[in-house]
């Protein structure tokens, strides 16, 4: 039988904000990289 853990995995209000900030910090450079690669890749279809 599994007992529901009271702590880990649960989220308290505000932590989703931190999650969003953390994802933005890694997502923006990644999107920039994808964008520059797409621009380069466009040459294949010209």
């Amino acid at each position, binding site marked *: 039988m599994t*007992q*529901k*853990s009271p702590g880990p995995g*649960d*989220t308290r209000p505000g*932590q989703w904000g931190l999650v969003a900030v953390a*994802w933005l910090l890694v997502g923006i*450079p990644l999107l920039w990289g994808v964008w520059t690669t*797409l621009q380069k890749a466009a040459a294949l279809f010209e």
Partner: protein
Amino acid sequence: MAGFLTRERIVAGPGFNRWLVPPAALAIHLSIGQAYAFSVFKLPLTKIIGITQPAPGDWTQPELAWIFTIAIVFLGLSAALFGRWLERAGPRKSGVAAALCWSAGFLVSAVGVRLHNIWLLYLGYGVLGGCGLGLGYITPVSTLIKWFPDRRGMATGMAIMGFGGGAMIGAPLADLLMKHYATPTSVGVSQTFVTMGLIYLVAMLAGAFLFRVPPPGFTVPPPVRRSRAITVEHAPLRPPLITVRHVHVDTAWKTPQFWLLWAVLFLNVSAGIGILEQASPMIQEMFKGRVTASAAAGFVGLLSLFNMAGRFSWSSLSDRIGRKRTYGVFFTLGPLLYITVPFAGRIGSVILFVAAAALIITMYGGGFATIPAYLSDLFGTQFVGAIHGRLLTAWSAAGVAGPVLVNYIREYQIHHGVPAAQAYNVTMLLMAGLLVVGFFCNLAVRPVAEGFYMTEDQLARERAPATAA
């Protein structure tokens, strides 16, 4: 300070949001993924003395090629050697170690460029950077698997996708920085190394400090519709290949499953390298006059996008269809696609050629991203980082053997009068053959035999430090 980094100090408290771990993992993998973009430095490094063109005394391409080779070898070695330490020390300590090694690699290389001493580049980017790569690769993967027992494939796919995406950031960033720092007396590589080393240090340390480990007895909160918490024991539709027990890292390599998966990774990577290594010349030679050099560069860029996308999508799909079936798809569809590549060349279809190559590359990336989840299914999560580290020697072996095999076969054929455009046919057939062998290796994977699992006592001893805290 040392205590601040220990595993015991980073056990997650109540309310910790496990969705903070993937961006932390991505921060590390996006940084070390720069390794795939090392080639942007190659040309400028051949002009350190001559500035506008290589001068006598400047480094040659073959001399510089060793830097990346050494880095990949040390990636495998450090992952294999320090994986056990990672499980004990915890992800924050090993993440900080990875950040220091990776960053120091850039800084030592910058000194090497200043002094024009190639040995400092071998030591810097090659040895130190390679250790940063190895530690940085396995640390997030091990942590994510423990936080996402219900979605292991998706979680590791997110991190390993970052390794594919790192080159997309690293290459244009290096280009921008070298242009910024270039002067009439310098190509700007040394300053670029320093800047990138510091940027990656900050990003990786941020990732390492965000890491937490789940407390003993961690359960995943149930989705709204489910009534009970999910542990790996109760993950929905747990297939027989997913164990709830744990195999010790020192025992894992004695199992046939370890070596079958080693072969699976080795064969999948070797076959993928067959396309990656020859992508640009292959499309230009097969479609002479129709595909220019810049279009070929675009093709290479497109492949890197599919490589990244495949890492996330295939590993996520493996959560639904199982790891064995996912590799089954790679090893069934893969050979057909490898045969399609020369066929597309024969009928002159660029679209078919690009589509086949792109799909092959998704499976190359997918193979990397799905293997940690496959390992944790078979060997449990306790030592998955260390076992994954040892398995990565397959990558190092494929990284050396793959290009040698591909280039040797091509040169052999051209030497015997085969036209350049047709010299790829045999290579592609050979790659298809490697995947067929991989199919049978994957097919032979069965659950680990009972005798290899750790007893409850052994497991308790291993977990003792974390529990005591």
